[in-house]
């Protein structure tokens, strides 16, 4: 069956040997703002790595993720995802927004919300099939949400909401996951589940860039750490290098 892709650009294959994400002098300025929210950031994340983006509120973490997700247009610099420009292949990038950006009172169930992760593969005019349904149920099981599948999204706790958003990103089968504060206001059980899932993603060759405030377990949960301050990249720590040397 023909897929009418949302962006109209189709599915572009990844460039061979290109890093999962490469930023070169990325600068983002919000309309009307006097100074950039992200200033001349250059970084590279290889396929299969888990990278953390740390920094205080307003340091530019979310802006950087939004630019990579194609929600903000760069003022200068370039973004390459698997060697291709932003938007060349929407299904390859999954974005997990901050919980505040979602209308949680909307009448949809957990299952229906997670199913939205399949929409990028379905495109216009196609409804989810049984295979999509199976995929959703498997991911709900993996994230401990199977019992909540028919629950309305407003009836979830903070940790359950965050796991639901992660489930949607997983169902999309993306290669690069951009997660904006997935650990904020989550209980210990949810944090463990999310950490396990992130670890498994790395083993499957998937790449994750995670904006986080939680600095306590960075070395256990991430391969790379990028520190940001006032829109600039101030620190790069390659934890995988030290591990490999050791």
């Amino acid at each position: 069956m023909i897929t009418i892709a949302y962006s109209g650009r189709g599915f572009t294959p990844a460039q061979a040997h290109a890093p999962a994400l490469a930023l070169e002098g990325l600068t983002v300025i919000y309309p009307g703002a006097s100074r950039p929210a992200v200033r001349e950031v250059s970084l590279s994340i290889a396929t299969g790595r888990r990278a953390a983006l740390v920094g205080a509120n307003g340091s530019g973490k979310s802006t950087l993720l939004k630019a990579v997700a194609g929600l903000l247009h760069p003022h200068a610099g370039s973004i390459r995802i698997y060697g291709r420009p932003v938007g060349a292949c929407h299904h390859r990038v999954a974005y997990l927004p901050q919980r505040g950006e979602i209308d949680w009172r909307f009448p949809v169930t957990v299952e229906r919300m997670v199913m939205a992760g399949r929409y990028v593969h379905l495109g216009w005019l196609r409804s989810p099939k049984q295979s999509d349904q199976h995929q959703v149920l498997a991911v709900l099981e993996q994230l401990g949400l199977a019992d909540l599948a028919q629950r309305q999204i407003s009836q979830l706790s903070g940790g359950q909401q965050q796991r639901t958003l992660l489930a949607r990103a997983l169902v999309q089968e993306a290669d690069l996951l951009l997660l904006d504060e997935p650990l904020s206001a989550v209980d210990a059980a949810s944090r463990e589940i999310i950490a396990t899932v992130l670890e498994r993603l790395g083993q499957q060759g998937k790449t994750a860039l995670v904006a986080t405030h939680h600095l306590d377990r960075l070395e256990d949960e991430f391969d790379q750490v990028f520190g940001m301050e006032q829109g600039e990249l101030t620190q790069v720590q390659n934890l995988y290098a030290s591990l490999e040397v050791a």
Partner: protein
Amino acid sequence: MIDWLLAPFRYSFMQTGLVAATLVGITCAVLGAYVVLRRMAFIGDALSHTVLPGLVVAYLGGWSLFGGAIIAGLLTALGIGWVSRRGAVREDTAIGVIFTAMFALGILLMSKVRSFRDLSHILFGNILGVRPEDLIQISIISAGVLITLWLLHKELELTSYDPTYAEVIGIKADRMRMLLLVLLALTVVTCIQVVGVILTSALLVTPAAAAALLTNRLPRMMFIAAVIAVASALVGLYASYYADVASGAAIVLTCTACFGVAWGYNTLRTRQSRV
């Protein structure tokens, strides 16, 4: 009893009115679910008022009232979407300015018409005056709106609760909103024949608002809203036939009564769950 129920529908104008009210009720209720959930009630009300100058110009020029209303409605929908998209003016402010200006223009034009009574059916609706050719137009628009909502259900639903994620996967949330405004403009025009300019927003908002109190599933909400709208249309027609009251007002008041029952049920259920 059966005679009492069937008696009004021995007349062809009552049959036509029933079909028109059912089509308009279902369309308004289904679209109204998005209007309520996306907090677009103000714009729905505004659109119904802003078609007035289009109707009056068409009346004065001897053209199709339907065509005049559709053009005015679409221009308003696109105008509001365009002005608020630029960000310099907030959307509710843009609606407030355009809505009152268009309605004032409509009233000004109406004052040029020989008799105010000539256009009173535009303000208050006249379901019993629906002609077979009007019914064809209502059917085409209702079918078009419902089919569009069905085909784009998953995209409209997603952009309603998570426009950011929708944008990331390539669905333009502002275009979906613009599409909803256009569907709203078309629906409002069909609705004016049934309840008139002033009461149109009630058919869009009240059945869906009542249904939202009874369920937390979108398809079920649309179905319940449609049942309320059709039942209200029936009650309104009977009231109009037997009590000789304005049918549009009777339809709207029945919808309001349904909302009252739904609100009472919801309040009781919430209290019981707290105990």
